[in-house]
């Protein structure tokens, strides 16, 4: 007897929705095995990792707080991913968005204008778009692979942030810490629920999900991007511009990542530091795929990913595990998802080996 993978007559829709759940299940299972290997009780580990973070309403609010930048980045990226535009650099676009938006706030420090916050958000989006425009230009003008260029720009963005907070933008009264001044209250996003840190960025993120859904399912441009992604020749045959797909795909990802960046700076962090993002831009790619590139799916998968971040912190605190354990879980989730996705197109079957 041996296992044979047979191509399905058509891809299974059911499996494509079940596959993320299967991946999550397998991630739980192997996570518990991992705890066992590390000498911890798997049941205890599971509780600490996945249940403790949500044991009170503050925890639930933190979950939404952390899911917000993931939602924003993932919905922006999914627009490009649907059109086979592979923006790997959301992390860098997030950082530049944080810099441009945050820079604006620092420049107008003390202003009481009602326009300050909206302009910061717009500036954040613009910053992300500028950073995303570089790989878009290189791809459409020189056919340079955007996977490489957008990824390399992440490292450049990190160095730019580092240089600014160590140098010109360093808070003079900050005891030489590499960080800027704290943003004023007028430049900080209003809290939604008293006693929590959840702010209006969540509303923006939910709005982005709705806008993303409309763009992908109702707009002609979204349809053109889908065609470009699935059958390039058909797009050319119909006269849809492939370059425009690249530009829109990259800019959508950049804009949303930039908003995520400024929302962190004007939200829970309150200033620009070297640690604006614990890899939200990268994790958002996993979020987008686990959410099947659909805004509804992304809503749930960003909550899951936020839970992994929080579980990592808890594991550090209560299990004495390094916080990078959450990266291990992220990796396992993606790994199992890619594995489970094989079943969308193939059906396993046990067959008797022929002589």
């Amino acid at each position: 007897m041996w296992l044979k993978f047979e191509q399905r007559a058509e891809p299974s829709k059911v499996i494509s929705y079940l596959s993320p759940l299967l991946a999550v299940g397998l991630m739980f299972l192997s996570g518990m095995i991992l705890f066992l290997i590390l000498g911890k009780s798997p049941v205890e580990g599971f509780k600490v990792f996945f249940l403790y973070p949500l044991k009170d309403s503050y925890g639930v609010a933190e979950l939404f707080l952390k899911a917000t930048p993931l939602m924003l980045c993932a919905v922006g990226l999914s627009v490009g991913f649907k059109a086979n535009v592979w923006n790997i650099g959301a992390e860098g676009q997030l950082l530049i968005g944080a810099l441009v938006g945050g820079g604006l706030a620092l420049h107008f420090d003390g202003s009481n204008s009602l326009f300050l916050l909206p302009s910061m958000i717009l500036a954040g989006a613009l910053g992300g778009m500028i950073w995303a425009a570089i790989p878009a230009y290189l791809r459409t003008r020189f056919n340079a692979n955007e996977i490489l260029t957008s990824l390399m720009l992440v490292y450049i963005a990190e160095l730019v942030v580092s240089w600014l907070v160590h140098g010109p933008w360093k808070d003079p009264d900050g005891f030489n810490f590499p960080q800027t001044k704290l943003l004023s209250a007028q430049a900080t996003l209003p809290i939604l629920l008293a006693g929590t840190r959840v702010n209006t960025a969540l509303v923006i993120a939910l709005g982005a999900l709705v806008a993303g859904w409309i763009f992908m399912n109702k707009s002609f441009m979204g349809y053109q991007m889908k065609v470009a992604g699935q059958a390039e020749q058909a797009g050319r045959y119909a006269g849809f511009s492939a370059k425009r797909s690249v530009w829109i795909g990259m800019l959508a990802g950049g804009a949303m990542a930039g908003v995520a960046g400024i929302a962190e700076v004007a939200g829970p962090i309150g200033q620009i530091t070297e640690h604006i993002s614990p890899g939200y831009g990268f994790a958002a790619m996993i979020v987008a795929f686990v959410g099947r590139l659909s805004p509804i799916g992304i809503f749930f998968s960003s909550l899951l990913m936020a839970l992994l971040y929080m579980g990592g912190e808890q594991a550090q605190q209560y299990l004495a595990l390094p916080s990078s354990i959450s990266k291990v879980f992220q990796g396992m989730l993606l790994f199992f998802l890619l594995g489970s996705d094989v079943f969308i197109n193939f059906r396993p079957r046990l067959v008797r080996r022929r002589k």
Partner: protein
Amino acid sequence: MPTQTPDKPRLALKGIRKVYPSVVANDGIDLAVMPGEIHAVLGENGAGKSTLMKVIYGVIRPDEGQILWEGRRVTVPNPAQARELGIGMVFQHFSLFETLTVVQNVALAIPGEFDLPALSQRIEEVSERYGLPVDPRRLVHALSVGERQRVEIIRCLLQNPRLLILDEPTSVLTPQAVRKLFETLRQLATEGVSILYISHKLDEIQELCHAATVLRNGRVTGTCTPSQETPKTMARMMIGEDLPVCSHGEPDDGGEVRLRIVGLSHATEDPFGTDLRNIHLEVRSGEIVGIAGVSGNGQQELLKAISGEEPLADKHAVQMCGVKVGHLNPARRRALGMCFVPEERLGRGAVPRLSLTENILLTAYRKGMLFSGLIRWGVAKRFAEDCIARFDVKCGGPNSEAKSLSGGNLQKFIVGREIMQEPKLLVLAQPTWGVDVGASSFIRQTLLDLRNSGTAILVISEELEELFEICDRIVVIAKGTLSPSKVTSKTGVEEIGMWMSGMWPETGTSGDAPHVA
């Protein structure tokens, strides 16, 4: 006829059955080929011919049934084993490396030592003996399609096959080249080689084959001796009913010029493509113009220049309805009233994983399906339902994925989608390629009706019979240039066939003097 009448067949199939997830491709097929016999396997596309040949050649394994080779029961697990038994196959789509020479290509398929000079000599011997001229030192990409086919055949013959399988071998040949091929095949048969000849062209089978097995929907529907049949009786076996006939209206004196190509020259970027040279052509409302030619002579490049998929630097070279469009993209040309049915259906004419409704939107979105950038799905769906009903597209409904349709049904859908946009100019590539006989005749009749209602139609096809059936005028493309046009009734297959090899009389400027009715 076979020179000897031996008692046991060279190859016998008994009850071959092959099931795919969605279709039974072969259902209990029996077939016997005698030594020295040219045996036709006749059937429409999708009848199961190719599957059966792949079973014989070891590309796929049958689920049930027996293969008897010279009376001995065998299994053919792979093509190498098939070649060892003495089975050779020439595929419809050649498997040659373009950047290698003929002899290098042959050497790759021949087991044993790699001795190119000796092999070259053997190629020359075989090529001389069977009238298949080809120079072993030439690079494959520089060969014509007919020459490539000869290389494939020679490659098979070098292994001294006792059974040669040819899959639709004439679809890439001029009528003259077909005649040469037939001579070669007859010579092989007299030497005792059995030949399985797959085709849907009834006249060829009648001329060449000693026996025929007819398939329909994966089953054998009859065996016959082609010389004792008429194309009509064989067609009935093949499609289960009489061949429909198209009715052709009177030729029109020609209305306004809808497509004008003026001195179009275009160098292709594809290293193996064909450069277009000084092409002139006019298509008027109310006429069907056909472009004949052996594939690979610039048809693809010309179509892309007309459709706008490859915009040109020179905007004068292509004009539609009086507007210079050479530099415009396909969407803007469509806005002027052009519609286009490409040769590849899946992936170009339709997006495989999108529904039929979504595929309607691909080109028909101008028909009231957009509202300030948003899609009116209801309108698109009604259009799809209409198209499915009017063109008798067999499918699960407007929500079926394009790739779930058979080739012929998808073609009807795409043709329908383009026609329902009421084009002023309709361009079609291989409109009935791979479509069954009934559907082809329906598509041809639809084109004729459209012509009668004043549409200008340009058809590029490799099927000469089709062009002669529907076109008012025929031009020939060869090596990237276009011949003068001929009124269909004043020419014949013989002349057009001659032109297809690039030999037409130089009459001053080629192309398109105002045509005489």
